[in-house]
């Protein structure tokens, strides 16, 4: 076993004894969620091309537990919005977000998804956070695959430390209510 190059996730803090391991449920759930984030790509333009590179063998997002790209919002954990979202497309993005099951996270990849980017114009949504809550913003126009991987790792950190009760907390409900979700 000492020769093995397989990298395992460190177990959470806990008490080990003969035949048992005691730890907090929060930590176990967080670890499990963080290392199996299924992405739902919502790609409209050049950032989507960078995402394809991120998923492909060289950068290989599968190393982070995101092997299966889910093209159904119902089975996805992490919505990755990549590219310019026009105002006409905003309701569709919202619907996709609404169809995702809790817990769900959102990464805005690139300048357009984060703020509208160079498209400060009447037809373009000035950042997807106008219609859905966003957890991680990845800057760049378009960002390099390294940056997207870093964004996913930042999100993993969020997920790992998220309380299992967060999604039923009044603060979270208030957040959703502020988006009329």
């Amino acid at each position, binding site marked *: 076993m000492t020769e093995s190059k397989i990298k395992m996730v460190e177990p959470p803090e806990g008490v080990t004894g003969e035949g048992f391991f005691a730890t907090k449920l929060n930590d176990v759930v967080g670890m499990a969620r963080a290392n199996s984030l299924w992405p739902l790509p919502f790609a409209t333009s050049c950032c989507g091309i960078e995402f394809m590179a991120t998923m492909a063998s060289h950068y290989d997002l599968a190393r982070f537990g995101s092997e299966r790209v889910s093209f159904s919002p119902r089975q996805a954990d992490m919505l990755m919005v990549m590219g310019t979202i026009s105002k006409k497309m905003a309701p569709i993005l919202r619907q996709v977000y609404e169809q995702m099951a809790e817990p769900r996270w959102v990464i805005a990849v690139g300048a357009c998804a984060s703020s509208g980017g160079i498209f400060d114009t009447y037809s373009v949504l*000035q950042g997807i956070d106008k219609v859905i809550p966003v957890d991680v913003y990845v800057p760049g126009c378009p960002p390099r695959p390294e940056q997207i991987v870093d964004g996913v790792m930042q999100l993993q950190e969020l997920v790992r430390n998220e309380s299992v009760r967060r999604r039923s907390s009044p603060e979270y409900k208030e957040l959703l209510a502020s988006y009329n979700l």
Partner: protein
Amino acid sequence: MALETSQIQEKITQKFGANALNFETQKGIFSFEIASDSIHDVIQFLKEDQDLNFHFLTDLCGIHFPDNDEKHQFAVVYHLHNWIENVRIRVKTYLTGNPEVDSMTDLFLSSNWMERETWDFYGINFKGHPQLKRILNMDEMISHPMRKEFPMEDSGRTDKDDRFFGRTTINS
């Protein structure tokens, strides 16, 4: 025999007289202006006349001239193409500040979407269009964004300070 511009001019003037004016060649394309109430007849004549035979509508678009007088606030431009002779022409018609013009959908099916687009961006009303509604912009939009009175920028933008983009006169 190739279709000469003088021949087109002669035919149009003969049939429509004073309703057709300003014949000239602009950027290599023969162009003229038609009074807005006879534009449908002119396009129909251009399409159906055996010699002219402009049977293809390449493009249809609007223009806004806010500085012009009341009768020349808007223009609709038709680009027609005769495939047999490979001749193109440009037909313009000027409209008032409350722009209305006859739809070409009965002559060219392709004008359906182009007229919807022109309605969407300029608010030009095409009379007789079967389904005049927005095509590119979101349905909830109330402005016609290519009209000069509407700003190009989105007013919801919060992360841009106008002073750094040269949009305010006072740069302090």
